[in-house]
């Protein structure tokens, strides 16, 4: 079943929103895939980083349902390699923020078992909360 895309002004708005939040000219991406191949977390993603960029280019909100931006570890490997000089980590952050700012958290700290919390260093907990909760 191949979905048909009807491009509307809403798509344009979404692209605009992500571009503003990330400060990146998303449309510059020419889909070379360097980011995907550089990404250490890509194995755990449902769509590749370059696919994420593509969806944003077309302004398709479905990208918000994907796991990719949550699996991103902000390691900036894509950032230092992008031949077009785009900062993907900023785009992923923008997508996370769009949800987090609607108070849609990605993790529930309470659900993490007591002993694990004990084990985790502050640096992990704080950064985790900063990235995954609003």
């Amino acid at each position: 079943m191949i979905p048909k895309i009807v491009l509307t002004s809403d798509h344009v708005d979404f692209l605009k929103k992500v571009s503003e939040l990330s400060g990146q000219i998303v449309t510059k991406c020419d889909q070379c895939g360097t980011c995907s191949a550089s990404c250490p977390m890509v194995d755990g993603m449902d769509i590749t980083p370059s696919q994420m960029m593509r969806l944003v280019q077309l302004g398709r909100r479905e990208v918000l349902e994907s796991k990719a931006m949550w699996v991103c570890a902000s390691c900036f490997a894509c950032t230092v390699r992008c031949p077009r000089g785009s900062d993907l980590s900023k785009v992923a952050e923008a997508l996370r923020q769009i949800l987090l700012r609607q108070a849609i958290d990605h993790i529930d700290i309470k659900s993490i078992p007591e002993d694990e919390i004990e084990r985790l260093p502050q640096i992990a907990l704080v950064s985790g909360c900063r990235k995954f909760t609003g």
Partner: protein
Amino acid sequence: MKRTGVYVCHCGGNISEVVDVKRVAESVGGQPDVVLAKTHEHMCSETGQNLVIHDIKEHRLDRVVIAACSPQFQGPTFKATLEKAGLSPYVLEMANIREQCAWPHFGFPEEATKKAMSLVGMAVAKVRLDEFLKKMTFPIGRRVLVIGGGIAGIQASLDLGDAGFNVYLVEKDPSIGGKMMQLSRTFPTEDCAACILSPKMADVAANRNIHMLTYSEIENIEGYLGHYEVTVKKKPTYVDPDKCTCCGDCVGVCPAVVPNELEEGLLSRKAIYLPSPIAVPHAYVLDAEACLGLLPIACGKCKEVCDPGAVDFSMRPELVRFTVDTIIVATGYDIFDAGQKKVYGFGKYENVVTALDMERMVVHSAEGNPMRPMGKRIAFIQCVGSRDEQVGNEACSRICCMYATKLSQLLKRSDPSRDIYVFYTDLRAYGKGFEEYYKRAQGDGVKFIRGRPAELVEDPKTKKITLRAEDTLSRNIIESEFDLVVLSVGLRPNEGTDIIAKLLRLGKSPDGFLQEAHPKFRPVDTLTDGVFLAGTVQGPKDIPDTVAQASAASSRAIRLMNRGEYDVDPVTAFVHVESCDGCGLCVDRCPSQAISLVANVAVINEALCKGCGSCIAHCPKDALDLHCYTNDQMLAQVQAALTDKKDTDVRTLIFADDMTGYRLADNVGTAKMSYSFDSRIIRVPSCSRVTPKLMLQAFVFGADGIILCESEKNSNPYPHSVPTIMSHVSKAKDILGQVDIEQDRIHFVQFVTVMLAGFVNNINRLSEIARSLGPIPAGPLRRLSQDMDKKLFGGDHDS
């Protein structure tokens, strides 16, 4: 009383849709010496030109103003028209109401029409003072310098030599042939590169008109079109090419081993060696750096065994001096230094090589003595050093797609069991026969994968290379092992190019290659008269394009030289003898030493004078002047530009140099970019012609601000103009300061012809500044106009 005819062109609507051409024509109709003012659909058409010719005869016109497009565009056409009618081509002025009015002010008919009237007014004011000048012609010879002995230089030299012109071909390597000599085969036809190149190289050696200077480098070039003085340093080869029989005995005994340049350092050579099997001149060369020692002679074995006695340690570097009329620059390219792209581990991993390495490997395999085993699984990586901001080159190198397609096919066909992959970002098969060739590769089973590999990792034991990339079409991550990875490296300007560019004052485009005079209509010319570009020095291109461009360059050079003389507009300095007091201040101020004192009066050597006008400012007596841009004409234009100014208006004057500023204004217009109506553009050969006095007078007549637009230093035909302008500007600013007028009213900006936005912003910014400062009060203006010359020349100058 002058008899001026004014013609306002509709330009088929381009102008008339914005500007009310009728009103423009009427607006000048009233002026005393304007005999007639007409409008016409297409002035440049034959009917338009005939109209002018007819009127000149009928109404005995002796001055013509044509309000139409840019003089850069149709100027030559109308000059010819005047000549046809028996008038001097220099009593013509064009009011540029298309590029400077209709186009940038599109959608503002009223303002545009007003500005058009003012522009025509300026032209009328100037044409009134035009002189009946003749074209100047200078003799020119038939000698050409070709820099670079690659395929571009070879082709250019052959074309020129065959046409009977004297060619000096200078090549830094010991043999001509260049990069093409290293290639295996050429795409898309797959002829053997050496086989098609060597006959041409032989022709060069055989051509009586071509004087080859190999193993030589340009030391210095001075002069101008028709008289370029060249100094070449010829390195000693320590082998007499006429005696050398290429027996190779010397190589056997030579104890010094170094990497072989021809083989990209993958194989080695001795200190004494034959540069290439097809080398021209075909003789051995002794590489002094590699040799055990020549001073004192440490080894000398080569000399001992050389029967014909060709080895001669007494050779020394020699300086060769000669003069040429035109120059063709064909210094070519270097491949991108793959070591910079760290993620691919070139130089670190033994199984990662460049495409040029691969060319050599293919050559040797074809000859039956492979350099090294290549393995079964081979991957090509495209765009290495091209289209990549991380290595500072955004441009596409144009040839990599096809040479990778070529090499992959050659490898596949020589061993069909090979697995060959080409990892690309976009595959560009734009040329004749390229798409078919690409299809053939696909047919041969070469696999093309759309994705740029991110990194290569070597297995410490097997030395195989693991490549990681995304197949962006199936959206899967590919991670697999290869025996050999080939980097399709891009093209960068040859390191030697910079020196030549400096010597010849050639501009560079953003990608670092040399800049042509006009991307469409002068693709092989440069902004330096008589200097042309051929081949990859102007930008990446394949062999057919290079050869075509080389032939184009040579025919452009022939066009200049064939007549034996060439025309120049008589834009040269001249002296008002009656006012010259022989103080000599101007003499050593002329950048081209064209001024001398004869019998206590300044005299201009018209052959040397470049017509920059920078001398004028240095004359305290206003005795120096410039044809086509006389002091009176400049002043008349300035006044005319300000006559219609109302108290509420702001009016800024933009002095634009011929080379860049004025063209830039045209490009801005062509791009339909709008800017402030306040501005009036005045054309000058160089802003160094704009004297401090002229600037100050402009303010006295009511100007609110001034911009001087000049070519950036490295694309400026007058190398000294920029510092000169700076001193003029600071002088004018000082005096403004003395009389409490804001110095921010004068701006000096350097441009290259692509800086459209910058040009617009500068004009608009000045208008804003002028508005915020408001009009200059009467007090300061009065003080400014009082004894201006004293202010300018300290008054202590007495004759």
